[in-house]
């Protein structure tokens, strides 16, 4: 069996590929930011909130972490439609990804928060800091620094998992590829290109996080040691 590769028939579609890459990046970036903020708040609620809230957040996290992303995407997409709200597929995709990544971020951040020793909080308290000030300066900042590598993995994973939203016709990279391969009948070549594009995206995203980490975590930049 011989297979003749033909990448040239994909060349006319370079603009579509580029648009797919761009949308994937946008979906991932928005979901990452919202997911981080939401996840951090959930982590605070789960670590230090009132008991009822801890249970609610805990239940949400367990449901999300024990069901497939694809199913969550469909539930969000059709759920919103049933509520009678019309939103476009890209927005639905972001919502579904946020719902998903908030749960994972919550667990990672919770581990970070719980790694901060009680004595640190006591010391801040004794210096007269308010609860909020203590939380921000003494708990969250070192917690984030400590779990940053785990968060980065999660957000790279999120970027890759965003391909699933092609199922609700969000116009991201995989959806673009699906269309191109049905136009050209060059499925294998199309997915090779898409695979390489995702690989490149992963490197870019990791690189961006690495630079961001260097900028934000002064201690790590100067000492090079984990906190």
């Amino acid at each position, binding site marked *: 069996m011989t297979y003749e590769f033909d990448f040239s028939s994909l060349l006319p579609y370079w603009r579509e590929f580029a648009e797919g890459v761009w949308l994937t990046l946008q979906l991932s970036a928005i979901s990452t930011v919202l997911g981080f903020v939401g996840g951090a708040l959930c982590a605070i609620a789960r670590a230090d909130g009132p008991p009822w809230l801890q249970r609610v957040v805990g239940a949400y996290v367990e449901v999300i972490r024990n069901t497939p992303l694809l199913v969550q995407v469909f539930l969000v997409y059709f759920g919103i439609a049933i509520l009678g709200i019309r939103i476009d597929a890209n927005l639905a995709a972001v919502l579904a990804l946020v719902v998903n990544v908030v749960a994972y971020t919550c667990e990672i951040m919770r581990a970070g928060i719980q790694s901060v020793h009680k004595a640190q909080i006591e010391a801040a308290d004794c*210096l*007269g800091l308010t609860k909020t000030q203590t939380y921000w300066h003494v708990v969250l900042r070192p917690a984030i620094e400590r779990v940053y590598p785990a968060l980065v993995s999660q957000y790279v994973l999120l970027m890759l998992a965003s391909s699933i939203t092609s199922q609700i016709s969000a116009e991201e990279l995989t959806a673009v590829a699906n269309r191109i391969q049905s136009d050209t009948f060059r499925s294998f070549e199309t997915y090779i290109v898409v695979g390489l594009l995702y690989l490149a995206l992963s490197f870019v995203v990791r690189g961006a996080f690495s630079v961001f980490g260097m900028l934000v975590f002064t*201690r790590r930049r100067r*000492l090079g*040691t984990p*906190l």
Partner: protein
Amino acid sequence: MSAVVKLSNVHKSFGALKVLDGVSFEVNRGEVVAVIGQSGSGKSTALRCINALETIEQGSIEVCGHAIHSDKLDKRALRLDVGIVFQSYNLFPHLTAEQNIMLAPTCVRKLGKKEAKDLARECLARVGLAEKADHYPEQLSGGQQQRVAIARSLAMQPKVMLFDEVTSALDPQLTGEVLKVMEDLARGGMTMILVTHEMSFARKVATNVIYMRQGKVWETLPGHQLENPSTPELREFVGSEL
């Protein structure tokens, strides 16, 4: 002289364990009081009660006019008047020495960054660590970390400073450098209460020494008379320490 810290008949238990059993003592302005005793005698708990880190079941504690035992206690106002230094330093690991010191003055006293930085430098100089301002805790020795912790507390300009076995985790040389800083503070007129095992320091620097035993104040005596206790228990304790 007015009492800055006054404990009256303080009782405190952890479950069935009676830790403080009717403790009373006073500390006046400018005095240095060393609290000594075996482990488990309640001395650290007494210190923590003074800063409202533990609640008490009975009795009263007044610190700089704050009624610690009261339901209406304003803890934050109390903490502006009282500084505490812990055995385990508890520096914030993600901040430099200088940032550790600047945090509370900027957050609590609302100093500007420039003012806070100057204050931090000044406090670091007082503990002999001016050149370590940009070092992170993990780059400092235990003794240096403890001195930064003292400087951090000093920056809030407390009226009373509490020291909870601050040299217990340090070797003799590092202990010496921390005690030197504390001695300077005492000479500067700071009101200090220290829980310590450093008998020679207590003898040299303390106005009064309080010997605690079984949750009670067993004996109180001036620091310079530490070698001549009146109770056989303290005599034995001092003898075993020296």
